[in-house]
């Protein structure tokens, strides 16, 4: 069906022209907010909440004029709702309105970095607009001046209507694409917010920022596969046959259709997740039975008749999904004090659940205290978000993206910052501090004569001869399951060769199944002083020992260091 609102702005005449007056884009107090909350404005018809925005022709385009906007258009905007305030976005000198090729259509887009000022008809309307406070919008985040400029709204003649018709199918496809792009940037903001600078956190963030997935543009693949792979390596097309991989892929796909406006029917979502995941497997398979058992357990928890184990010592994906089903609000997931009050929740479980909630909300709907947390200048985030958004929307590829640099500097002590910079401009900065328990262990190791290098807030490396034991690189990291029961893990990576340690650790994928099985059997040896495992994040073979911090004495600490180091060396 083609209706009056199925038009799209298409103004090839403006592209690349030079002019002395700036381009003005007409928007309104009902439609302009995505520019402030996501850094990018598209016609209202493509937004998730388009049903609640003004209908009619104005919903489908971003009307543009040079110098002044036609009075007729302004009146049309005024007629769309009570109390609506017409707003003109003045683009930077010489810039035309951008158009992106999306799904074979040219879509007009205003990026926050293109805007030089926001114009109102009078001081009263400007004052009203800037007095509004929302949970998900900061009206000052754009960082451009607001001005009262009556003459920008009173042109007597209107340019010809330059729009082309779009059918409903195109509108729906573009809306889906807008939603996917918003989800990915929401996931990114959530990842930054929740990250603790562990190796896994940094790796996830880097891959998200660089849209790095097997050399393909993520939106050309199934975006859910891309996100699933970033969040949980191995759940992409190769891992889609595992229970966790399948559950994560189906969950992301369901979340795409569950923006916050739709509510959260947890039991219904669980049933859909169960059913879609089961469809992928033979009903008699062990995977199908595992999904059935998990869904049954979740159902009991949602009815408050079972207790949910949510620590990090089980299936990360299944536990994170259960946590998300129990509480979908990112703010509630971010508040670890209230969450951990009655149920111990693992850091990684909470992180994944929060990331999924962030993806579901998308950047636009994420509360400002989450999306602008750790951002020194919100306008820099909005400009970067717009860059990612338009890139994802229009197949621009990663050459259009800003260059990412992630660093953390702990100095020589136990406190510092980690920083994400884009094109050498700091974007996010987060204070970090090594937890007291881990700090004590590090100080003890130093006292015993070893060299200690703090790697991240959650880990440090130990090497050297100590008082008499030679210890090769052992990473000591924090495992915090519950208050007063903090554990540390001593881990040594199995080098890939005896001679050249620089080639890194041995990957599980480099071994035959029979060799892996042999390694597994060694865990049962009576004289084994460490567990042999495959690292969940790097897939490297490691030797580990876990130890409660409170009960560890000198002899235990030194023997753990020696045992994991020597066993890893033996396995080379």
């Amino acid at each position, binding site marked *: 069906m083609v209706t009056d609102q199925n038009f799209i702005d298409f103004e090839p005449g403006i592209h690349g022209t030079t002019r002395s007056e700036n381009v003005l884009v007409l928007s309104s107090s009902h439609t302009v907010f995505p520019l402030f909350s996501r850094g990018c404005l598209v016609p209202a018809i493509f937004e998730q909440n388009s049903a609640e925005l003004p209908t009619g022709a104005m919903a489908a385009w971003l009307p543009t004029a040079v110098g002044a906007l036609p009075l007729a258009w302004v009146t049309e905007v005024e007629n769309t709702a009570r109390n609506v305030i017409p707003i003109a976005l003045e683009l930077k000198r010489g810039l035309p309105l951008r158009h992106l090729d999306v799904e074979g259509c040219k879509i007009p887009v205003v990026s926050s970095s293109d805007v030089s000022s926001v114009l109102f008809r009078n001081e009263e309307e400007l004052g009203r607009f800037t007095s509004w406070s929302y949970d998900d919008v900061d009206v000052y985040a754009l960082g451009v001046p607001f001005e009262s400029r009556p003459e920008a709204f009173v042109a007597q003649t209107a340019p010809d209507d330059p729009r082309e018709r779009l059918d409903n199918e195109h509108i729906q496809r573009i809306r889906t694409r807008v939603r996917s792009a918003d989800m990915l940037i929401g996931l990114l903001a959530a990842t930054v917010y929740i990250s603790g600078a562990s190796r896994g956190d940094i790796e996830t963030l880097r891959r998200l920022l660089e849209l790095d997935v097997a050399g393909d543009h993520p939106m050309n693949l199934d975006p859910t596969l891309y996100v699933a792979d970033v969040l949980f390596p191995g759940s992409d097309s190769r891992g889609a046959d595992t229970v966790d991989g399948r559950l994560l892929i189906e969950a992301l796909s369901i979340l795409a259709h569950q923006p916050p*406006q739709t509510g959260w029917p947890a039991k219904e979502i669980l049933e859909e997740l169960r059913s879609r995941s089961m469809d992928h497997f033979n009903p008699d398979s062990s995977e199908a039975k595992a999904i059935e058992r998990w869904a049954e357990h979740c159902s009991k928890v949602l009815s408050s*008749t079972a207790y949910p184990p949510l620590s990090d010592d089980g299936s990360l994906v299944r536990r994170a999904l259960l946590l998300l089903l129990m509480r979908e609000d990112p703010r509630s997931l971010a508040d670890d004090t209230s969450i951990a009050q009655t149920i111990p929740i693992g850091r990684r479980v909470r992180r994944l659940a929060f990331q999924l909630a962030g993806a579901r909300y998308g950047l636009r709907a994420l509360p400002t205290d989450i999306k602008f947390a750790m951002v020194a200048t919100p306008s820099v985030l909005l400009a970067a978000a717009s860059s990612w958004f338009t890139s994802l929307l229009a197949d621009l590829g990663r050459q259009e993206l800003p260059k990412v640099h992630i660093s953390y500097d702990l100095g020589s002590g136990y406190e510092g910052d980690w920083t994400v910079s884009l094109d050498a401009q700091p974007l996010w900065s987060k204070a970090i501090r090594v937890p007291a328990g881990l700090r004590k262990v590090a100080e003890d190791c130093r006292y015993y004569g070893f060299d200690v290098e703090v790697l991240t807030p959650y880990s440090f490396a130990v090497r050297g001869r100590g008082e008499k034991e030679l210890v090769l690189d052992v990473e000591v990291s924090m495992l915090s399951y519950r208050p007063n029961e903090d554990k540390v893990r001593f881990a040594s990576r199995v080098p890939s060769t005896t001679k050249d340690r620089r080639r890194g650790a041995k990957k599980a994928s480099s071994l035959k199944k029979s060799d892996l099985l042999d390694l597994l059997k060694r865990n049962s040896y009576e004289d084994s002083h460490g567990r042999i495992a495959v690292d969940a994040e790097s897939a490297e073979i490691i030797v580990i020992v876990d130890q409660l911090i409170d009960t560890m004495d000198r002899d235990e600490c030194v023997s753990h260091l020696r045992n994991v180091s020597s066993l890893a060396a033996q396995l080379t």
Partner: protein
Amino acid sequence: MRLPSESELSKEQREVCQAPLTGTTLVIGPPGSGKTVVAVFRQKTAENLSVPASIAVHNRVLSRFTGLEGTFVTWFNDWWKGFAGQVKPPRIAGGRGYRPVDYSEATKDVLGRYRDRVRSSGHWGHLILDEAQDFSTAVHKLLNLVPDIVFCDAELNDRPSLTILADENQRITEENSTIDDIMETHHLIDNDVYTLTRNYRNTREIALVARHFHVGAATGVPELPTRRGDKPELISTSSINDAVDRIAQYALLHPDQEIGVLVQYKNTRDRLFAALDRQLSSRGIRVQVYDKPASSASLAFDQPGTVTVLCFSSAKGLEFDAVFLPELQTLRVDGAAEDFAKMTLYVMCSRARSRLTIMIDKSTPRHSPLWRILPSAAKLEQLFDIT
């Protein structure tokens, strides 16, 4: 209360929120249509414009809920003191003990002997009157005459202004006003009036249950929300202790939520409070009760990990993430009170944002009056998860 999310506002809410703060604006809406959200939004807007703003509510519990320390009575006394000094507002004559303010006499004083003082130090900025249907027409008359008569020579933008939020369906006191009374008293025309038609607080599933109990009045049946959630639960409990165990288990699994436990009678409230307090307080969940006016000062709202036990009469205007209605068999449902009982359930069910659980003792006979006002068996299956 949390500010609204722009991306989740409906068109009608957006129109009210973006209305200028001048003159008098009347917002009519059913429970959960976001009237309190509008109040909070407009208060914050006024604050950003450096206009003094207050939200005045009818009862003490509501005043705590909106984060204010005072009710309308407190606000009025403070306002009066601002221009009349130590002279108290006139009281209704007769009797000993507490005597309420005589707003008709107060109006005469404001327009007469205190007129100049009100003009110089009685500008209230922007006053937001929540649950305005619960105030008498004398109160409305006074609030109208101050800007219209006392400040008649000031520019419209410089006069004291009002946002009035009302829902005729929720009248609970004898001294109340209809929407027509309010419109007439404040000389409002259609352009000053906004009607919120959509239910915003509840999920669709909860609203469907609430709608079953709705007894029609001027503002009509609210439109169903689009926001989805889990079906409400109807649980047959074996005893009050069984109900307590279930509520406690839910609270422990959802320490991120505000939970309301609403009952009709004080003795049920006190028993539930004592039992829940025993089970939960030592495990990090705050359990609180509203048992007398003085205790409202210690009530905490908008805080996760809180269970609030209240009588129906104190719960109006509040909202919780999860609401439990235990011991419902104690609800009085006899001939004349049937509509009142349905209306009570309508209002109480509407307190729940995401989760609603109704609990009835399993020994309650099916022919009891309570079951007469509950949905039929087939509809019960549709509306509830039954345990």
